[in-house]
């Protein structure tokens, strides 16, 4: 493993200016993530977990502080470079799933591949990951609105996995799943981690957090 951290946060703050007063979502966070780690992020609701994950996923920019990804400061990178990073190296599972309503389950999963490659291979790969997260073929053509919360969550995980990213960022990946499906998903994430992916997940569930080898606790935007 290289000595350069995969992710380095140095004094990162995120402040939302609101009419009622500033909301400090992240307060001077400093942390390091090495390649291949499996991390659980825990903390009470509203503590800043999703904000942190969005920063790691290069979706959001900090109000103050620096974020380095593989040694490169992301605020110095162009929008196109960051977008390509998200497309090729980062797999994101959003808390609200964020599937594209216009597209069927399989098309949602295909989408990140289709941004770069042709349709034929994308279909094969999409079927592969959808099966891996336990979606039945009969549901492939359903629109997100026609799927249950748990199914949507698994489609979102499949979409995050489809481009075989280095970093997997999951916001409560088992939040809507029963214990059995939740365990299957965690086994899948653990397997991906063993294959070398860095996995960072937000969870409230200590049993789920137990899969991780390190836990970051966050309260009121501060790491404790």
């Amino acid at each position, binding site marked *: 493993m290289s000595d350069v951290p995969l992710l380095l946060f140095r004094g990162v703050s995120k402040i939302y200016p609101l009419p009622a007063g500033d909301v400090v979502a992240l307060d001077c966070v400093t942390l390091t993530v090495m390649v291949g780690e499996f991390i659980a992020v825990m903390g009470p609701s509203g503590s800043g977990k999703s904000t942190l994950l969005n920063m790691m996923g290069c979706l959001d920019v900090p109000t103050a502080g620096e974020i380095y990804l593989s040694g490169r400061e992301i605020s110095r990178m162009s929008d*196109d470079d960051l977008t390509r990073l998200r497309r090729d190296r980062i797999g994101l599972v959003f808390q609200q799933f*964020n599937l594209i309503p216009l597209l069927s389950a399989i098309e949602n999963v295909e989408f990140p591949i289709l941004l770069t490659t042709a349709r034929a291979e994308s279909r094969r790969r999409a079927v592969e990951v959808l099966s891996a997260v336990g979606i039945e073929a009969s549901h492939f053509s359903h629109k997100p609105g026609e799927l249950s919360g748990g199914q949507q969550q698994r489609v979102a995980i499949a979409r995050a996995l489809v481009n075989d990213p280095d970093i997997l960022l999951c916001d409560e990946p088992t939040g809507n799943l029963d214990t059995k499906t939740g365990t299957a998903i965690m086994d899948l994430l653990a397997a991906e981690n063993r294959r070398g992916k860095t996995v960072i997940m937000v969870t409230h569930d200590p049993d789920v957090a137990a899969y991780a080898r390190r836990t970051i606790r966050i309260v009121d935007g501060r790491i404790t």
Partner: protein
Amino acid sequence: MIFFSFAVRNLRRHWIRSTLSIIGIIIGVIAIASLGMMGNSINLLVASVITDIGDTVVITPHTAFGGTFAGDPRAAVDAAIPAREVEMIRRATNPHRTIPVLQGADEVEFGRGKSGYARIIGLAPEDIPILLNIADGQYPRQNQPRVLVGTHLAREYGMIPGSRLTIGNENTRVSGVLAERGLAFDINPDYAIVVSDAWYRNHFGDKDTYPMVIVRVSDLDEIDAVKEAIETRINRREVVVDVADSREILRQYREIYRQITVFLVGIGGISLIIAAVNILNVTYISVTERIHEIGIMRGIGALRHDILRMFLYEAMILGLIGSIIGGIVSAVSGYLVSVVALELATTGMTFGEGFMIFDMNAIGYIAFGMAFGIGTSITAGLYPAWRASHLAPVDAMRQK
């Protein structure tokens, strides 16, 4: 290509809205193309009916209105050129032929109870063969009080050489029927009766003035010299006559019709702008309601220009469909409109051989209308598309 299929799907999803904006573009394209074609038809019409007699200079009494066209009713008001000035013109333009023209009108009985009011043109007998050709019969012989009849008048009242007719209360006979002359800018004998100047003076009373003098120039290149000569000799101290030649009149006509065309195309352009605003509106709504979706796409790796492309495709598809349909419809309707308009404008006139309403210019206007339609669609789509692509992914995703 995925973004193209997205664009198509989205237009289908909101097909009513899409159809409405396509209709908007169709109307715009039709407006611009058919109005352009109409202007063009008028232009072609003018070019074909004005007999291009470039070798004629027309001199009319100067009017404050500056009317140079002999057919201008304002020029027909009493103003006339006295014989003394005609002589000056004759001397100034020698050796070119100077033809003084007398014009009036009188009640004419054509026999069998048919009568009407006709224009009477008086010319010196030796000048008649120079200006006018005979279709049937012959020119009146010297001192023979017979008359020539214009072709349309002859046809309408069944006049042939030898027919009797009464002008005012003077009986006379038709010596010949004139050949068709078309819409000329000097004299228009097709609906008139041509008599000798002696007959005219005798009939209308001896007024030694002329409403118009025509100078026939032997060589086209000398037109300017002739005009110059008249200007310096006759108009030296004050402007007493207006001098015009057919080239200039043709040019004036063309200019007027060019302006009409520009005006018509302008109206078409306004309708296209309205169509463009509609597309802008559609694209804008489409962007606004899909901000969340755009955020997701950007979040999982769609580049700014991918998003830009998607919205431009939408505008382009609308523009393309609208323009193609608009182009086809205007090719058909513009043609029909032109035909109808021409029919209305030209009842009673005939055209030269091979007269075409629908020429390359008309097709040019359709192409222009279509290009304009596609162009405005894309332009209208540009801003909303640009805005959509520049939203920060997290902010966009948070909007529902």
